[in-house]
């Protein structure tokens, strides 16, 4: 599938990967959703324990890993849930994220679009749970299909206008993990948001 005005999907995916890597995002090329999920759970299994930012009400098992996946569609969520069965210490949730103010280990979201020239994800975050999953997690994993990558933000003005139109809409451009250079202009990754961003770049839906 070649779009004559914006170059091939493959080129866009390559540019996207390069630009996202420049801002310390980890881009994993995968075949499909199944492989994306496997890779995600692999990352979670290797992840060090959560560093809680606040004392939480409940005592937690130190080996427990909390995975939030609020915006996956019903079928995909069930599929992920099935796969989590193989990891007894993974606690999969999709709502009530406010119960975890001290943080969650991983938030998984689908991304609506990718923007190649800046390595940016566009995520419809109208739903509060989606927002919290991408803010309170230590690792954010985003599922993005290569066909959803656009060359520039400017080239997708109509799609963006559609996203921001309508009361209650909350649209996020996410480029890399949260960062700061406020002390001596030295770059530090992981301030109030995720400490790391992984993008599962899927060739197929």
């Amino acid at each position, binding site marked *: 599938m070649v779009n004559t005005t914006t170059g091939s999907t493959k080129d866009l995916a390559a540019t996207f990967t390069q630009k996202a890597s420049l801002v310390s995002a980890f881009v994993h090329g995968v075949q499909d959703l199944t492989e994306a999920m496997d890779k995600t759970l692999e990352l979670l299994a290797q992840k060090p324990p959560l560093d809680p930012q606040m004392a939480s009400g409940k005592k937690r098992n130190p080996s427990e890993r909390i995975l939030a996946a609020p915006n996956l569609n019903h079928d995909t969520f069930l599929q992920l849930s099935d796969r989590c069965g193989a990891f007894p210490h993974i606690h999969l949730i999709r709502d009530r994220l406010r119960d975890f103010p001290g943080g969650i280990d991983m938030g998984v979201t689908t991304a609506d679009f990718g923007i190649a020239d800046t390595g940016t994800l566009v995520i419809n975050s109208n739903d509060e749970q989606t927002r*919290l999953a991408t803010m309170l997690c230590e690792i954010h994993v985003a599922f993005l299909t290569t066909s959803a990558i656009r060359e520039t933000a400017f080239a997708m003005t109509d799609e963006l206008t559609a996203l921001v139109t309508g009361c209650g809409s*909350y649209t996020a451009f996410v480029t890399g993990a949260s960062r700061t250079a406020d002390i001596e202009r030295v770059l530090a990754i992981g301030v*109030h948001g995720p400490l790391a961003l992984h993008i599962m770049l899927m060739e197929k839906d």
Partner: protein
Amino acid sequence: MGKKQDISAYRKRLDTALDNQFLRQAMDKFAVAYRTSRENAFAQIDVDSLVKQVADVKAAAVENMTALLEQFTHKASACGIHVHLADSAEDANRIIGEIAQKTGSKRIVKSKSMTAEEIHLNRWLENLGLEVTETDLGEWIVQLRKEGPSHMVMPAIHLSRFQVADLFSDVTGTDQDAEIDRLVKVARKELREKFVQADMGITGANYALADTGTIGIATNEGNARLVTTLPKVHVALVGIDKLLPTIADALTVNRILPKNATGQAITSYVTWITGPSECTTAPSGKREMHIVFLDNGRKKIAADPVFSQVLQCVRCGACANVCPVYRMVGGHQMGHIYIGAIGLITTYFFHGMENAKNLVQNCTNCGACKAVCAGGIDLPHLIKEIHARIQDEAGHPLQSLLLGKVLKSRKLFHSLLRTAHLAQKPLLDKKEKPYLRHLPMIFSSDHNFRRLPAIADVPFRDRFEKLHQPVKNPRFTIALFSGCVQDFVYPEHLEAAMRGFVQHNIDVTFPMGQSCCGLPAVSMGEKSAARDVALQNLDAVDLDGVDYIVTLCASCASHLTHGVPKLLKHYAPEKAAAFADKVVPYSVFMNDIVGIASADSAGANAGRKTAFHSPCHLCRGLGIHHAPHALIEKSGNQYVPTDEEETCCGFGGSFSTTFPAVSNEILTRKLDDVTGSGADLLVTECPGCVLQLRGGAAKQGRKFTVCHLSELLYP
């Protein structure tokens, strides 16, 4: 800050900043690093056309501000967002305070907003007994230190990791290492509870999109996302200058904003909110959302034909990043609330004349800010306009008034210079003729940081007739515009140039009616005197009789080219334009027009490593970078590039006498750079720069010599 001060108190504050070694190091490192990161960010991008696009988008929005505000209000209100318009800072504070009270909010978290700083919102809310926590790391640091931000996008750039570690040790009651990653994590932890407990979140906005009623916020840390998600109430404080028609316009601005601010292609987050968004803890399931649009003088600025471009500012802070004064003294001295060149201008409008009157003079008029401005604002010009406006309102200081009066009469001005020549005689250094040994009269010892040249025995105008040789069939006929410094202080620059003109068959005329170019008057806020001398100069030159008006002073060249047509817009626009068209700086004339192949300096004077100091008015004022380098090579010497070649030398006309200590530090940084290059010779193309650099090099015992380009070519 905030206290009314006379200029000597302001100078003392500057001295304190100059003595702060850490601040100096931090600022210098930043200035150097910014240059590279900006260059990288804009690699393969046509910056000029992008700036033009942004300037056009913003200018159109400023023009349609009222209609855009109406459209936005209509859209947002239909969604159930409460839109308020605050005429003044106090109105905005009161509105936000009332929202807090009505919603029963006690704890407030904020993401960074310069507009909130502008109206002193925190102070107001704290006086109401509310707890306000800044959540941007830098902003939190300065809040804890009870300071204001020292930069628009890097509020704590003036501090070291050690100072932050000490501060965080106090805050947490535990010793904190001065390791930046760990300090960042302290903020992550300390602030999480504040986010969770907050009743109300306050943000600014970078964009307000009229067609969808959306606000756009660009951040890196992710704090604005939490501020707009966890609390039940969200208040966005937005200057009406942030209104844009559509998201396409915002995306245009967003292409330049992060690149110009920090050298990033894009910030980690850009959040587009068309509220009110879902909030599971709010009774209605939706957050209560308020947008407070702030006027606070913006409509008045928008309606002002000269100053409306101020609102094209996108708040990237780049004008501070490149400012030579900011580099020496930091943001707390180089702004009131808004920092950098834009701050020198907006302080007058937002925070009044008292706070602006000293600040506005702290500008060398080097034009580095204009060259880097994302919104295409003519910042140096507007700074001078503000200066003039303040003097018109508050009264002109005696010194400036005298200068204006003297300049208006060329004969008076020149006879004063001749008298000064006689008066200086007892003060001259007997061993080294060209320098004044002691400073006369009005100069205090503060100004003694460089050795000042003596006024010449015979000014160039009295030497011209002897030097002038009639030329048969000349290649070009030129009018030589000397400017006052070369006429009366450095006639030898012009004499050297005359030797070259003769060799190349150029007929030179010296219009005796010419006076000062008028730039010193502009720089002291004496606009009407500047206009008078501009008219005198127009009358002095027989435009039809000459091919070019050549000047060896880059400042004169730039002012005659750009300044004079502006000053005479309503007086003699056509003649001023025709005059400006004929003005060329010396290097361009010799290299590009005459096209010399080599010069006289071959032989004994050749083969030296030669650095060039590019006068601000040459590189940025006139966009000339190449011709002087080519001429250095043609002189048989080796041109050596230096990092700070296009950085101001700190002269800036009256700047160096108003703020001698800052001028000296800028000068020293420059001379250090030349020393570091190993150059034997430093060449420049402006007598003001020669005065500063040669005087400084002599005073500091530097190993290289300083000369004008004409002296290099025709010694």
